[in-house]
């Protein structure tokens, strides 16, 4: 049955909404495949506004990989802004894809990529607009399989009631595997309906189907047990790890939007995973081991991606880009290739200790030398030992001095507030560090126009990290410490005016904490907030702490647990955590030991350069570290 485009109905309404171009599609390198020729059809969603969602690498990669397959079709959908939501409700227009403007409910899979938990309410909006029942239990064989992925899917429990399934880890191979299971099931005439399809997916241990697991609770509210409730369902669900990134050089044809988006560049992941071991960093824990893309593949991807897109900027992405074993040759090779073409290169994540000035000079050869960003994360030496961010203040000062000597005038420093064991003085130490940075810059250059911007984020303990047991700092304490820091800097006659301070208040972090470490009972809160009008919780102008607070009180009234119980409560080693049955490969005992080491201020080295410390990932997942150097160099491109 052909599925009609809703665009003819949408088009006359577009003049009524803000930035209508975001709903129009037609991006360069996007495609609309024939509906009837595909047996398996995916609607992929990034649950935030188009301007944030379009550049998302995960969605772009899956979109391309799925569409490359004959008989498989993938289209994209994003969260619509409230003005558009109102227009759609008024005119009965369902959640649609921007490619074919087809209704999301007509697809086989509705896959949603969650980089952050703050997209949960947006998922409910999309489901509701799509006409798909919010609760998985209410769906019939005619509804798509609602599937979550992305980092937040490592604890999907707070949205378990709304999901049919979730996958953990790298999506490339598992998305194709799921496609084949669906193709087979549909080819057989959908035996056993939706239930059997989900069972076939779950049996492999590679897809989590929440409804096949029962959660029981102790009288005090803690989880007693999470166990499969039917035969053949494995007790644990494994994450997926793509080995050999050179075999998966995506995106090959980056999507180029007409609308303005948050990242206007061609991004290449130069490696996945990170073993620096920063204890707050969920990404670094759940994406192990490190797998590098080779210098030659990076070179080819950049060449092809620029040709396909016309972008003017290339971003070399990873969790700590300067750690690539051949980053120097990559930078020099690319800078040589694109010299004189007004193509700029950027390295979004750089560690202080991995930074070197040669590298920075290569990256700024094209022109700009505006700002450098470093993330010491903790203000005091003690704090950095707790979080295992092994950067000394002297390292930092040496690095920024070199940077200032080489013509940079502005340095940006990232920190966190509310870290475990943190005291007021640890946060005030940020001011001392910023002052030393300015002084070093002035001494090195003899100039007064040296600037330093301090950005501070609230720390949120995340699942699958050593801090998963930690008490989250309450927002009053976070706000008080930040105010003290602000006063300290404001009162500084000598350096204060050269230091900019950026931070947010602590309340949103508390809700992020609830959603990060929540269990299935938190789903009621999410639903209540959404029903009360909660949307776009990642946006300050839409987020309402009071609404979350009130809804949490009401939705959890009959439970022995509340918002504080989920956030500011420290857990004991034996407590069953909501995500214990979801396996990122990390050994639970190692994580606990690392948590103890944190409290004792004991540091752990990086296993790329020192012996394995048995975090457990490689043996559990059958993976290994894949790093260079390959010894190869980038050759000049042939001039056309």
């Amino acid at each position, binding site marked *: 049955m052909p599925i009609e485009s809703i665009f003819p109905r949408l088009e006359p309404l*577009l003049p009524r909404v803000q930035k209508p171009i975001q709903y129009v599609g037609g991006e360069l390198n996007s495609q609309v495949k024939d509906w009837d020729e595909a047996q398996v059809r995916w609607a992929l969603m990034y649950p935030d506004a188009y301007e944030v969602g379009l550049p998302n690498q995960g969605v772009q990669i899956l979109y391309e990989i799925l569409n490359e397959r004959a008989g498989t079709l993938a289209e994209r959908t994003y969260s619509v802004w409230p003005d558009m939501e109102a227009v759609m409700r008024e005119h009965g227009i369902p959640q649609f894809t921007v490619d074919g403007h087809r209704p999301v409910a007509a697809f086989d899979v509705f896959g949603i990529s969650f980089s952050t938990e703050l997209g949960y309410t947006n998922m409910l909006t999309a489901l509701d607009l799509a006409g798909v029942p919010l609760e998985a239990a209410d769906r019939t064989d005619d509804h798509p399989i609602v599937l979550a992925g992305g980092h937040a899917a490592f604890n999907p429990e707070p949205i378990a009631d709304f999901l049919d399934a979730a996958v953990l880890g790298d999506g490339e191979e598992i998305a194709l595997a799921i496609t084949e299971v669906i193709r087979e099931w549909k080819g057989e005439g959908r035996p056993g309906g939706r239930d059997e399809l989900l069972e076939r997916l779950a049996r492999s241990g590679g897809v989590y189907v929440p409804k096949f697991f029962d959660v029981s609770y102790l009288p005090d509210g803690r989880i007693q047990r999470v166990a499969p409730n039917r035969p053949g369902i494995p007790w644990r669900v494994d994450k997926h790890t793509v080995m050999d990134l050179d075999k998966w050089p995506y995106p090959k044809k980056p999507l180029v939007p007409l609308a303005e988006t948050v990242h206007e560049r061609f991004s290449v992941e130069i490696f996945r995973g990170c073993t620096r071991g920063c204890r707050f960093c969920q990404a670094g824990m759940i994406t192990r081991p490190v797998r590098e893309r080779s210098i030659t593949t990076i070179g080819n991807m950049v060449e092809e991606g620029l040709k396909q897109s016309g972008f003017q900027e290339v971003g070399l992405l990873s969790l700590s880009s300067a750690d690539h074993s051949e980053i120097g040759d990559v930078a020099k090779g690319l800078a040589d290739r694109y010299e004189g073409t007004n193509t700029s290169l950027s390295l979004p994540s750089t560690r202080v200790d991995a930074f070197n000035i040669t590298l920075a000079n290569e990256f700024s050869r094209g*022109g700009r030398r505006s700002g450098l960003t470093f993330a010491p994360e903790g203000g005091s030496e003690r704090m950095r030992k707790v979080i295992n961010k092994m950067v000394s203040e002297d390292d930092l000062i040496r690095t920024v001095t070199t940077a200032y000597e080489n013509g940079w005038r502005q340095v940006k420093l990232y920190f966190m507030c509310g870290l475990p064991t943190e005291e007021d003085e640890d946060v005030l130490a940020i001011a001392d560090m910023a002052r030393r940075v300015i002084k070093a810059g002035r001494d090195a250059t003899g100039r007064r126009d040296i600037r330093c911007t301090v950005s501070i984020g609230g720390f949120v303990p995340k699942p699958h990290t050593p801090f998963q047991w930690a008490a989250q700092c309450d927002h009053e304490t976070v706000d008080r410490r930040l105010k003290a820091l602000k006063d300290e800097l404001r009162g500084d006659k000598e350096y204060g005016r050269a230091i900019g301070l950026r931070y947010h208040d602590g309340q949103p972090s508390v809700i992020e904490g609830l959603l990060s470490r929540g269990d299935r009972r938190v789903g009621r809160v999410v639903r209540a907030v959404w029903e009360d009008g909660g949307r776009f919780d990642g946006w300050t102008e839409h987020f309402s702490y009071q609404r979350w607070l009130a809804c949490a009180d009401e939705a959890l009234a009959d439970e022995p647990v509340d918002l504080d119980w989920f956030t500011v409560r420290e857990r004991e080693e034996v407590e069953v955590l909501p995500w214990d049955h979801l396996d990122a490969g990390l050994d639970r005992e190692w994580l606990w030991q690392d948590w103890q080491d944190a409290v004792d201020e004991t540091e752990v080295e990086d296993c790329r350069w020192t012996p394995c410390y048995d975090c457990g990932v490689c043996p559990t997942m059958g993976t290994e570290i894949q790093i260079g150097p390959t010894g190869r160099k980038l050759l000049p491109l042939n001039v056309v």
Partner: protein
Amino acid sequence: MPEGPAPAPVIHRLRVRYAKRGRLRFTSHRDISRAVERAVRRAGIPVAFSAGFSPHPKISYTGAAATGVASEAEYLELGLTEIRDPARVQAQLDAALPDGLDICDVVVVPPGSGKPSALAERLEASEWRVRLDGVAHDDAAAAVAAFLAAGTVEVERLTKKGRRRFDARSAVSSFELDRRASEAADAPCAILRMVVRHTTPAVRPDDILTGLRQVADLAPPSPPLVTRLAQGPLDAATGGLTDPLGPDRASPERETAHAAGDVAGAERSDVVPSADAVISARS
């Protein structure tokens, strides 16, 4: 200033007429300039860059039709570091742009023909087509007649500088109901055509529709579909518009351009072809 040699200078200038059609009418001016910059890179057209720490391509635009308004006649100018055949640039740029942003005409700016603003000065007025779905022909005709009969029609619009009141009538040099097109349309609608002089503050088709509501209580049930059909110098004799690129084509320097392979420009008359003709020639 960054180290290294100065950027290559502009030695060749091209003027381009482009259209924004169909769903791409929802692009804003900024969306279009990003799309053009990327298309130029993809097509390998040697556009010059400004000097400085954040070099910008030398592409200049004349006043753009508003977001949501389609156009058959938008103009931009490219500064190139090398001489290029305009017909080839037209084909390459058109291929590199998304469907709906279409390159219609490219001419060489004869050397020494003045500064880039010369083109903007030629764009004295625009011809607009406004389709009003669900509006009866007689109601539309009566509203147009009432508008034309009025000495002034004061309208109010929210601009960046706040609420402004201005006269929408005096900028209108011709205005009529296109009965033939209205009757031939696929759905009941009234199609208006108007020529509006570019004034300050600019009088836009929606200001004129506001005027129609004021003078004749005409309130279309759905948003109007507005298309700019042409821009150019106003011909005092006919009240119509002439081709703003005509003077470039007519320049004595044109022989040089022709020798370089300017086939595209050679066959054109100096009068802008009507947009309908452009569309039918394509389909």
